[in-house]
């Protein structure tokens, strides 16, 4: 099984964080990013609970219908993104994230009928791809991180670029 966690890019082009178009884009993407990040986490947690046999089928788990609604909202917002130069890949990457999440959701729904290691492996592989794509979009300079610490105690150490 391929694993999570190649490092996000360490060498980045410079960013003009006073660029209004960049700021507007960052705000738009941050919301989408947060939704997709939450979906990755939610689906991952479901896979743990299924494997632990604490949920006998996805019916014991949070309603996937709500998750699909959030996914749909994210897709619509992705379509309306207007990324500036330097961030033009964001939309296509986010769309690709959704493709992987859709596949993971479908696999988890199939688990309702039968839970096999192949289902677990298939769904988690898709989530790993989605997570890696999101990591490639991450840029703490515009608030895109895989961990939200915006209201955590430790953000006082945050240094402005």
């Amino acid at each position, binding site marked *: *099984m391929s*694993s*999570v*966690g*190649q*490092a*996000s*890019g*360490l060498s980045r082009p410079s960013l003009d964080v006073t660029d209004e178009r960049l700021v507007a884009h960052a705000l738009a993407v941050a*919301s989408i990013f*947060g*939704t997709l*990040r*939450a*979906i*990755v*986490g*939610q689906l*991952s*947690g*479901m*896979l*743990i*609970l299924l*494997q*632990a046999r*604490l949920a006998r089928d996805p019916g014991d*788990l*949070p*309603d996937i219908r*709500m*998750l699909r609604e959030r996914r749909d909202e994210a897709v619509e917002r992705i379509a309306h993104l207007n990324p500036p130069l330097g961030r033009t890949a964001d939309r296509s990457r986010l769309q690709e994230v959704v493709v992987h999440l859709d596949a993971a959701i479908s696999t988890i729904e199939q688990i309702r009928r039968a839970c096999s*290691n192949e289902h*677990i*492996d298939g769904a*988690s592989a898709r*989530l*790993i791809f989605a*997570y890696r794509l999101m*990591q490639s979009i991450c840029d*703490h300079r515009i608030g895109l*991180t*895989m*961990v*939200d*610490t*915006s*209201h*955590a*105690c*430790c*953000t*006082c*150490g*945050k*240094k402005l670029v």
Partner: protein
Amino acid sequence: MAQYSIWVLEYAYTNVFPKTGVLYQAHNQGHLKLAYCYTVIKGNGHVAMQDVGYNNKDYAKEFAATLGLEKWQSPRTVLSEIGITPEDVDTVFISHAHFDHFGNVRDFPSATFYIQEREISKFVWALSLPERMRFLLTGIDPGDILRGVELAREGRLVCVDGDMENVLPCIDLHAAFDTHTYGSMWVAVRNDGKPVSQDTWVLAGDLAYQFENLGDSGAGGAPDGQYIPIGLAVGSHTNLLMVTESMVKAVGYETRRVIPPHEERIKNRFPSRITKNGLRITEICLADGVQSMVA
């Protein structure tokens, strides 16, 4: 007769942590040094840890720098200071799923991980809430949960339901639901091997950051002040204080025996040394016949 040795190992630190984050309502009282640590418990043929730190590779140094974190070293480097390797670790107790406690599981290929089932299930619930509720997800990296899937697939993730006695000989897990997180957990080491121990050590995880959380003004004896809750919690202050009482009671109200791994000042109570990488090792206790790693 002492069964286990316990060391608190610093793997990074920040000098700019706001005091109000560790002591509720300590507003405008400046910043302090916060150590980022994991704890090793060794004895009875086991090498166990409470927590595994965060994954600097995945987060990249720039993210850690934004939080003012310094001197991160890998588990291999940190553990070598007490003569063990990550592969030696057979058991890990995850106090809670925040990124700086659950982030480095892949570095421990031989370990079985214990986490409260409620920590997973309630965060799955919190992840399903609208974006405006995202405060509840502070400090959670979905990648850590995803790595948990890998552990579960390998049969190395045990979802605990509440308290668990003798998870290892004379080591008990205690649930602390709806406190710092939904399924936080503390560890009690009954080091004399007795069911009603006179030599218990409690590893508090993030349920206490500072001595003052435990009503300890510095003497390390019975609480001589009120309990003060920590700053960040998705649960309630009531629950935090009730758990604090449970932890302090477990050590016979000798507060020095409750170990907050983030507390820099444990160096003033227990033998310690600074490694060549500028990080601290603190030796809480030694099993019979074991040589000091800090002398």
